[in-house]
């Protein structure tokens, strides 16, 4: 029988520093045992407990998509004991993983509909998984329009930069990237990035010199912006009709995004949020992560806004 507390060994096969502050890193993990890999079947939105013997565990969203075979990605911000130790890890090191844990974004419900993805900061991880999943050739047909709105404090803090630039260009999706405050390179869209060596790619559309401010014409087909996510959202959101919105980001972003979606006509049943609570067991036993009578680790982390409205506002 499976012991849900014992981690499976995984090897770090790559480490990518995502941001300028160098406190967000993506870890590429490969299972040491094939059987473990087979058992680890997940969908976007789920998370896992990463374990380092002697330091402990921490819950981290799965950033890779189930359609990406042979590895898992986790993007981790350095915060406390375990994440700090993880940041010191080197390629080749073996760590532990427990999971997949929690529920998923409502993939089945999203099929046949437009999908609006709203992310902020490093919480973009499981949304990346979702985007990858939708963009996968064999899945793409199951979903209608895909709109991505992603924001960070400044250009240096955007994660998955080379993919962002790729998505900007990709047909069949609209990508809006915004930063609270741009730097001198944000217009015209050059960006120092360890993952994205110069020359930086040109913007999606409207020619190389389009200024990416949120005020102005012709912004409806993607682009780069300066301003907060909710503000951009107000400008560029697709019609609520037939659209399911997924949100994951810092509490403050969520707080201001929800009323805007509601004003735009999104019903609470069509908005899904991924939440964070302090966790330990990840399997609904240690009693730590509840919001009202729901355990975020087991009944979440993804909740329909409609459901959240029925739960106490304590998160």
């Amino acid at each position: 029988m499976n012991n849900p507390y014992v981690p499976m060994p995984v090897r770090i096969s790559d480490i990518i520093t995502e941001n300028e502050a160098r406190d967000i890193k993506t870890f590429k993990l490969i299972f040491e045992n094939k059987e473990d890999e087979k058992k680890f079947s997940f969908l976007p939105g789920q998370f896992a407990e990463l374990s380092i013997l002697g330091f402990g565990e921490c819950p981290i969203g799965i950033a890779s998509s189930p359609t990406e075979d042979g590895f898992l990605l986790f993007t981790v911000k350095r915060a406390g004991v375990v994440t700090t130790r993880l940041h010191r890890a080197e390629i080749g090191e073996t760590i532990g993983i427990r999971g997949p844990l929690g529920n998923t974004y409502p993939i089945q419900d999203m099929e046949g509909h437009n999908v609006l993805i709203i992310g902020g900061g490093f919480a973009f991880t499981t949304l990346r998984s979702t985007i990858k999943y939708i963009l996968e050739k064999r899945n793409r047909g199951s979903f209608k329009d895909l709109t991505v709105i992603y924001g960070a404090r400044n250009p240096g803090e955007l994660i998955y930069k080379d993919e962002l630039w790729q998505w900007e260009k990709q047909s069949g999706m609209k990508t809006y990237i915004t930063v609270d405050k741009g730097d001198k390179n944000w217009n015209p869209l050059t960006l120092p990035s360890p993952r994205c060596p110069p020359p930086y790619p040109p913007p999606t559309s409207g020619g190389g010199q389009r200024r990416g401010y949120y005020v102005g014409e012709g912004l409806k087909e993607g682009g780069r912006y300066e301003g907060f996510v909710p503000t951009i959202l107000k400008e560029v959101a697709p019609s609520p009709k037939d659209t399911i919105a997924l949100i994951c980001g810092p509490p403050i972003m969520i707080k201001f995004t929800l009323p805007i979606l509601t004003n735009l006509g999104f019903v609470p049943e069509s908005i899904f949020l991924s939440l964070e609570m302090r966790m330990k067991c990840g399997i609904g036993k240690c009693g730590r992560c509840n919001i009202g009578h729901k355990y975020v680790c087991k009944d979440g982390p993804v909740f329909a806004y409609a459901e959240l409205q029925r739960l106490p506002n304590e998160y």
Partner: protein
Amino acid sequence: MLKEKRNLMLYKQDFEKFFRLLSETFTIFGPSKTDGSRSFTKIDASDEIAFDYENTKMSLKEFFFPQTETLFFFDTEKNEVKQTDVETNKHDKQNILFGVRPCDAMSISFLDKVFNANNPQDLYYTRRRKSTRIVSFACTNPASTCFCTSVGCGPDSETGADIIFFELNGRYFIKTVTPEGEKTIKSAEKLLNPATKNDIEEKVHLMKTANSNLKKIFDSGNLQKKLDNFNAPYWGKLHRKCLGCGICTYLCPTCHCFDITDEVIKSNGRRIRTWDSCMFSLFTLHASGHNPRPTQKERMRQRIMHKFNYAPKYYGKTFCVGCGRCVIYCPVNMDIRDVMKEIMEER
């Protein structure tokens, strides 16, 4: 389930023999006179059992869900997990927990929902649970702090027990509750006689008196509804005298919150789980510094809500059995019965 629960009688003078017969197959634990019934300890002779105790200080949960439990050992140098042997229970001798109060027995049936249910199963708990029979003792003389009948338990509640004992004049009335209970007393069958009508009447009378000594303070069903008001004004006041010490949760038989941490000496380490409590300020503190329950107000609310509102919704049971431990040991006399009354009175 057992088709027919049996009512049996055992003379008190035969108890010693009964105990010896059972201890041939089982290790027996009970409230012992030697430690002032602080907790359930190993009993070697029948006269060590404290029959007249009110309730052990430490609840029965300790036995299945100890305060500190090693999940597994590891070696940091080799970077290797050394599996524990929880998967197999072949090493375990079968245990009997003898003289359990009905409230504690019921609390175990709640913990079963948390740890034993296959969602996923907690092997550490399950393993002990599987190898243990619970023999409870009906309360004929409930303490003034007991309020079991207010929360759906009672001095003769059978839930969670395999066998229940009633102490009659000069003899024990024994009721087998589960098939496991039947098996448990097999070896002592020859000491047992079927209960007569008289015996049953005496038992019924006895429990009537015990029941009448317990006041029903509130109706837990009603309470759950009442508590749906998350922002009720009483939450602003109730917590003020609370010290946040967590005694009420550590001693509570149904509280099951835990922490998971690593301990290392040189390269030898172990991952352990230890009791934790929603009454502690760090319980929900995020690494970012954000705390969804920043003050004792929210924590007090969590404790009450979890027991009387959330758990009923999640597990279908009020996670309080009315044992009174939190009432007795709270250093500021935060009496949960009073809290309930206050909540019920609020409109």
